C-alpha cells in the first residue's frame, strides 16, 4: 500500500472540495512547491533556466490557457501562436510606453488585452463548432501575425520589425533584458505560473468550470440545463486568452528577449501548445504541466542523447527526433488517449488497489 486514502475522512464539504483531498497528494504538492521555490533557484545556471525551466514554465501557462478553452470548454483553437503574439506585442508596447510602471503590471495587462482579442475571435464559436472552429481560429493566427508584421506602430517603427525587450526590474533585480540572473527570471516566471495555476484551478473546480465542461460535453443539453452558451464560451475565450497572453508576454520579454511575429509566434507555436495539452491531458491542470514538461524536455533530451552521447550527425539526429517524437505521440495516444494526466490517475488507482489486481 504505497498510496492510500483509506482513513482519510472528510468531515465537511469544504474539505472534500479542496484541490488535493488526499493527504498524500497534498504533502507531495507541498514538497514540490518547496523544492521549486526554495531549492531550485540555488542550483540552476543559465543553461538550465534558458533551455528548460523558462520554456517549461512559460509553456505551462500557455497550456493551461489553451486547456481551459479546449480541454475544459471544448473549443479547439489553433490560434494560440497569434494570441501569444498579442501578449508579446502588447507587453512590448506597454513596456516602452510606460517604462516606469512595473513589468508585472505590464505582463498582466498584456494578458488582459489578449483576453479581449481572444473574445473577438471567439465570437464565431457560437455558430461554428468542432474542427470548423479549429480551422477558423487559424484566421486569427494568420491575421494577427500579418498585422504585427504590417503595422510599424506595433514594433515602434524599428527598421527590422523586430521587437526587443528593454531591461526592466522588480525590486531592483533585472528580470528582462540582457543582464538578468538565471534565478531571477526563473523565480519571476515561477510566481506567475503558481498564481495562474491556482486561479485556473479555482475556476475549473467551481461553477464556472462546470459550465465550460457542460458546453464541451454536450452543448445543446448544457443550454437546456440553463448554461448560457454565449457567456460560457466567451468567458472561456477571455480567460484562455488572458493566460495565453501572459505566456506570450513572458516568452518575449523574459525568455527570448527579442521576437518577430512570424518567427516566434507562427502556426507551429499553436500546434506545439495544442500537442502539450493533448499529450498532457485535456481538461486537466496537472496535464498542462505534464504536457509542457514532456514537449520541452523531450527534444532537449533526445538531442543530448543522440548528438551528445551517441555522437550522431545533427541532421540525422534531428530527423530521428522527428520520427521519435511522432512515434511517441502515437504510442502515447494508443496507450492512453486521455493523456499523461489520465495515465497518472490510472497509476494511482492501481496503486490504491495494490496489491490486489482489481
Amino acid at each position: 500500500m504505497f498510496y492510500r486514502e483509506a482513513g482519510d475522512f472528510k468531515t465537511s464539504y469544504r474539505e472534500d472540495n479542496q484541490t488535493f483531498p488526499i493527504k498524500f497528494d497534498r504533502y507531495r504538492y507541498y514538497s514540490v512547491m518547496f523544492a521549486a521555490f526554495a531549492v531550485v533557484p540555488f542550483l540552476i545556471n543559465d543553461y538550465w533556466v534558458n533551455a528548460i525551466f523558462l520554456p517549461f514554465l512559460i509553456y505551462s501557462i500557455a497550456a493551461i490557457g489553451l486547456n481551459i478553452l479546449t480541454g475544459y470548454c471544448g473549443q479547439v483553437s489553433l490560434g494560440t501562436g497569434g494570441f501569444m503574439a498579442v501578449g508579446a506585442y502588447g507587453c512590448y508596447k506597454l513596456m516602452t510606453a510606460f517604462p516606469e510602471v512595473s513589468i508585472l503590471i505590464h505582463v498582466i495587462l498584456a494578458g488582459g488585452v489578449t483576453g479581449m482579442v481572444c473574445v473577438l475571435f471567439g465570437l464565431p464559436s457560437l455558430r461554428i463548432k468542432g474542427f470548423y472552429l479549429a480551422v477558423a481560429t487559424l484566421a486569427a493566427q494568420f491575421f494577427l501575425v500579418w498585422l504585427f508584421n504590417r503595422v510599424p506602430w506595433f514594433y515602434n517603427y524599428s527598421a527590422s520589425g523586430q521587437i526587443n525587450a528593454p531591461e526592466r526590474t522588480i525590486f531592483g533585480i533585472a528580470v528582462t533584458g540582457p543582464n538578468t540572473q538565471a534565478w531571477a527570471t526563473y523565480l519571476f516566471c515561477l510566481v506567475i505560473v503558481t498564481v495562474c495555476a491556482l486561479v485556473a484551478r479555482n475556476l475549473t473546480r467551481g461553477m464556472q468550470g462546470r459550465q465550460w465542461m457542460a458546453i464541451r460535453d454536450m452543448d445543446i443539453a448544457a443550454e437546456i440545463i440553463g448554461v448560457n452558451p454565449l457567456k460560457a464560451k466567451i468567458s472561456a475565450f477571455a480567460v484562455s486568452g488572458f493566460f495565453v497572453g501572459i505566456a506570450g508576454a513572458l516568452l518575449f520579454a523574459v525568455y527570448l528577449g527579442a521576437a518577430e511575429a512570424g518567427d516566434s509566434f507562427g502556426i507551429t507555436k499553436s500546434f506545439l501548445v495544442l500537442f502539450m495539452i493533448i499529450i498532457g491531458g485535456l481538461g486537466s491542470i496537472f496535464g498542462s504541466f505534464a504536457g509542457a514538461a514532456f514537449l520541452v524536455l523531450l527534444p532537449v533530451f533526445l538531442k543530448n542523447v543522440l548528438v551528445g552521447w551517441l555522437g550522431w550527425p545533427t541532421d540525422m539526429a534531428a530527423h530521428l527526433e522527428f520520427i521519435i517524437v511522432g512515434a511517441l505521440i502515437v504510442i502515447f495516444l494508443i496507450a492512453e488517449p486521455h493523456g499523461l494526466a489520465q495515465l497518472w490517475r490510472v497509476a494511482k488507482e492501481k496503486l490504491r488497489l495494490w496489491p490486489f489486481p482489481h
Partner: protein
Amino acid sequence: MLDAAANDETLLEVNNIEVIYNHVILVLKGVSLSVPKGGIVALLGGNGAGKTTTLKAVSNLLHSERGEVTKGSVHYRGDRVQDLDPAALVKRGVIQVMEGRHCFEHLTVEENLLTGAYTRTDGKAAIQRDLEMVYHYFPRIKERRKSQAGYTSGGEQQMVAMGRALMSRPETILLDEPSMGLAPQLVEQIFEIVKSVNENEGVTFLLAEQNTNVALRYAHYGYILESGRVVMDGPAAELRENPDVKEFYLGMSEEGRKSFRDVRSYRRRKRWLS
C-alpha cells in the same frame, strides 16, 4: 412451440468469461451460457448487470471500448471466435443490434438498411427483396426512407437498427434491449418479428432485455445476470413461474400486480442478495 428449442446443437458457447474495462474495472466475473441453434435465449438482469458487456464480448465489440476478455472463452459453432475481427464474425453470421440504436446519422434510412447488407454477396435482387421485407415489417420507416436517420424519432431509429441487422441475413442475432423506447404495440410487434424470423428463417437470437415480461413470453430459455454473474437460469416457462422472478422482474407479488403508485409504501428486497 417451445419445442423449436429442442434442437440440441449448441451454436454459441460462452465459457466462464471475465471482462475488464480500462484495465481496472472488472465487470463480468465468470459468465457462462450457451445458445442452441434456432433458439431464442434471453439475458435478463438489472441495470449494470453486464448484459451489454456479455453481448459485446460475444460480438468482439469490446475492444473499441477499452474492454477485454481476460478469462474464459467464446465458441461459435465449435470455433474459438474471440480473437476475430467483428467483421469476420458478421461474415460467419453473427450480428449485433447495439443498445442505443447507433444508426448512421448522416445516411438515409434506406442507406442504413443497405449498409446492413454490406457483407452479402448474393446480388442486388436478393437485397432488394429483403429491403421490402424489412419495410413490410416496419411500415413506419418506409415512410421515412429518404430522410437522414439522425432526424428520425427514437423509436424509428430502433426499427432502423433492427432492420439493418435483418438485412445481413444473419444466422444469429444478438439483440440488445430491442424494446427500449418503443411503444407497447411495437414491442409486441418486434417480438412477433423476432419470433417469426426465428421460426421461418431459423435465425437464432440471444437477447438482452429489461422487459422481462415480454422477453420470457417469447424466449425459450433465460439467464438472469446480477452484477456480472449468472444467478439463475432455466427454460423460460420455468423462470416465469419462479416466485422471485415473478416478484422482481415481472412485478407480480403473490397478490397480483401492484400499482406503481403503491411503491412508496413498500420496498422489495431480493432474497438471494441479502
